[in-house]
């Protein structure tokens, strides 16, 4: 019956036999599998749009950089034992980047979005205290030392962006990549957020060295 002519069968649908199909058309099945895997990977990683269309340009410190949703400027970097009222723990120090940042999008964002716009090329401790290659910095507003937990549109803050590092591994030069983002709905929960980090500028800052003594040790 299995080898009988197909027209003999009254029920025209045959039971689907994937194994048989793969054996009969190994190349076609393999190709289809590859196609499905490629489609799945592309979909999961964010679609066909190019993630770095232009590439990041090297800019000089003090240059205004447009990195949606921010417009920001990084001036200089220094190593310090204190950032605002916060003092570094023993054995640790801050690498502080001074600059200014303004939100150019019409709706407020949180500090997480700002942290996502900067990638410093150093190993630092994140806020939970564990070392990370892409740590979220502490951002302080210069005139009052308060922590910038979010930004509203059109306000330009002078800021100190601080990374906690080991005192012994304070770098002499710090390269920072500024990343732009796109506002779109999340494919998972449909929420409007800033995604698709794209490097828009790279800059290298000389890091002013730590003062010879830790201020608390004098006390």
């Amino acid at each position, binding site marked *: 019956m299995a080898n009988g002519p197909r027209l003999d069968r009254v029920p025209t649908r045959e039971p*689907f036999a994937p194994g048989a199909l793969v054996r009969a058309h190994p190349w*076609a099945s393999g190709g289809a599998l590859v196609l499905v895997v490629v489609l799945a990977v592309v979909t999961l990683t964010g679609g066909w749009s190019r993630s770095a269309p232009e590439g990041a340009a090297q800019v000089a410190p003090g240059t205004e950089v447009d990195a949606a949703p921010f417009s920001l400027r990084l001036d200089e970097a220094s190593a310090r034992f204190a950032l605002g009222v916060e003092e570094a723990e023993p054995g640790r120090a801050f690498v502080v980047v001074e600059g200014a940042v303004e939100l150019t999008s*019409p*709706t407020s964002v949180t500090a997480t979005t700002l942290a996502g716009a900067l990638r410093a090329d150093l190993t630092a401790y994140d806020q939970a205290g564990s070392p990370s290659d892409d740590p979220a910095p502490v951002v302080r507003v210069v005139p*009052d030392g308060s922590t*910038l937990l979010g*930004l509203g549109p*059109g*306000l330009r803050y002078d800021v100190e962006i601080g990374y906690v590092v080991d005192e012994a591994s304070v770098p002499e030069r710090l390269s920072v990549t500024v990343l732009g983002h796109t506002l779109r709905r999340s494919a998972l929960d449909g929420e409007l957020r800033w995604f698709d980090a794209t490097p828009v500028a790279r800059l290298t800052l000389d890091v002013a060295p730590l003062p010879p003594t830790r201020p608390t040790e004098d006390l």
Partner: protein
Amino acid sequence: MTAPARTGPGLGHVLGTALVCLALLAVGSWLQGWLPGGDDDPAADPHVRRGAVGDAIDLRTSTVTVDRVQGTTRVEQYGAELVSPGLWVVVSYTVVPTEENASITFAELEDARGRTWGLVGRNANSCAESPPGLPVHCTALLEVPADALPTLRLRLARLSRDVRFDAVAEVDLGLGAEDAEAFAAAPTFAVPAPVLGDGTEEES
């Protein structure tokens, strides 16, 4: 016929099925993008009640009145001074709950250019829950650039996390460009804790 392996359907049949599946998926995702999504539910839009400074606005769960709008560059909250690169807009308002204990936890400013300033970052809303009929005097403080002042509107609602289906008060703050100068010269504003009761706030 020497084709013992051909027990399944032909290649053309499978390809056809795949094509139909893909076409259906494409039509489905096109429909999905075309139909209103979960966030576009027009019935879920907040019910906006408009008013001016001094108007009592009915928010179903409470009645809110914006009493006074002030501005400064420096505010003091919890002992820390916060200096704005723009201006702090300080709104004193009163909430009278209707049937159950209520409060206001959503505050947002918007200007004519569609820019909004919510309760993120250093912005704050100092308000407390109050029982029905008992007024609670609250303060919302948000920093905005000076050029936004002339068209600022304040929105207040019960729940900061969700204003869908709920009533939202929208108050034109009635500020002008001349207020920006006065605000820039104003002294530090100490943010008061919310006050329960009929008593009007003491002038500071």
